[in-house]
């Protein structure tokens, strides 16, 4: 028997948790994408060996370690090195770092898939490199990269629950509090599952719409 009364008591906290989760996801994903894009650009544009080597090591290290471990290093380990972060900044930084190599890989593949001829046509006309990137490479790249970008962004929604382990008051954290105080496991986990389902479904709908917009010119053959 579910007790709906519980939600009268814990509702506000859960709602705040939802807000925090969505906030963390948006900021974390945006920053991870930005850093990933930067990494992809450096990987593509700077051929100096040491730079490539450092980049490789960074990508391998981040991809080779669990997110939880990275968060603990940031939150509990970094203060010993003099970097003291609150839970929220540590969590956002963690998401940024954790997501960046995956996004970098998606962007790298996407940029490599832009036909060289289209870039050469712009170069031959005297376009500046930044203009070529902004006006030609990014829009063309997005066509092939969007599905993977949406996919990994969805994966990141679910990684946000791990932020509860460093006391970021997101939905998982609030749900655990509720569980600990009421033992209402069914109600709280149901709310949690429902929320993520709706959240992910919304994102994938937005993603599909973006994909349609980005590829409209490929589909409008009459």
């Amino acid at each position, binding site marked *: 028997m579910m007790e709906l009364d519980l939600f009268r008591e814990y509702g506000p906290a859960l709602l705040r948790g939802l807000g925090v989760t969505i906030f963390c996801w948006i900021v974390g994903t945006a920053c991870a994408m930005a850093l990933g894009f930067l990494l992809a650009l450096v990987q593509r544009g700077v051929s100096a060996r040491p730079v490539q080597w450092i980049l490789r090591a960074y990508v391998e290290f981040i991809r080779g370690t669990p997110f939880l471990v990275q968060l603990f290093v940031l939150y509990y380990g970094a203060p010993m090195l003099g970097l003291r972060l609150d839970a929220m900044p540590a969590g956002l930084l963690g998401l940024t770092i954790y997501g960046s190599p995956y996004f970098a890989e998606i962007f790298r593949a996407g940029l490599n898939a832009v036909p060289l001829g289209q870039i050469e046509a712009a170069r*031959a*006309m005297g*376009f500046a490199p930044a203009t070529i990137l902004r006006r030609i490479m990014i829009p063309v790249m997005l066509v092939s990269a969007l599905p993977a970008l949406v996919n990994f962004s969805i994966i990141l929604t679910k990684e946000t629950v791990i932020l509860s382990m460093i006391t970021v008051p997101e939905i998982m954290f609030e749900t655990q509090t509720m569980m600990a105080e009421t033992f209402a496991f069914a109600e709280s986990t149901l709310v949690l599952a429902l929320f993520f389902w709706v959240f992910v479904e919304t994102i994938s709908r937005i993603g599909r719409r973006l994909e349609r917009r980005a590829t409209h010119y*490929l589909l409008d*053959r009459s």
Partner: protein
Amino acid sequence: MTLAPSLTGTVNPASARLENVCKFYGEFQALKDISLVIPPGKVTCLIGPSGSGKSTLLRCINFLEEYDRGGIWIDDRLIGYESVGGRRMGGRALREMRRDIGMVFQQFNLWPHMTALQNVAEGLERVKGIPRARAHEIAAEALAKVGLGDKTGNHPSRLSGGQQQRVAIARAVAMQPRIMLFDEPTSALDPELVGEVLGVMKQLAAEGMTMVVVTHEMGFAAHVADRVVFMERGELVAQGSPAEIFQNPGDRRLAAFLQGYLERNSLEL
């Protein structure tokens, strides 16, 4: 297809001069000491078997391909390097030189996310800094002049190969270049679409544009070119007027190449 009287307005054609140009890919030498004068306002056709280096040579003229030795001058300005054998030219200076050099590619290389109009207007806006409204006007005119006035809103995916290549020519010509490079502009086209592209090129030639054309269209080379250059294995083997090259090929390799071309084309009939 009827074309407007003038594709270019007024052209101030540039000349080009190549001296001892060499290009290496590792050990392989793709260009061997090529020296050549491209006279202003004339059509120079580069012919030769595939792999002979003619496309590589063409791409050196706007420095899309970096030559390793020698020099290439557009009018009297060296492209790609600050001096012969010297340091690489800065990006800004190279971009400025490239504004004068139009290029048309075998695969058209239109930008797929832009309409025909946007493809032509993009360079006007982003390179020449022309305001959008004016750039679109110029682009619409340029497309009308290549017979595509009714296709301005189409994306490349909704244009035939011949139409795409005409958009590509309009895109290059709208920038008001002083010399135009064509890299096998009809090789990717279905045979029935070749004529419309060659038609635009003929008009451009008649208007006094300096043109360098890598082509397998011997008919075009014979009838439109002022100079024909034959290359093989990275060497410039023969050059002359179309009459000299096609009617009286002194060189043994040139004669063999032309003979092969004639045989292939008579077999097709």
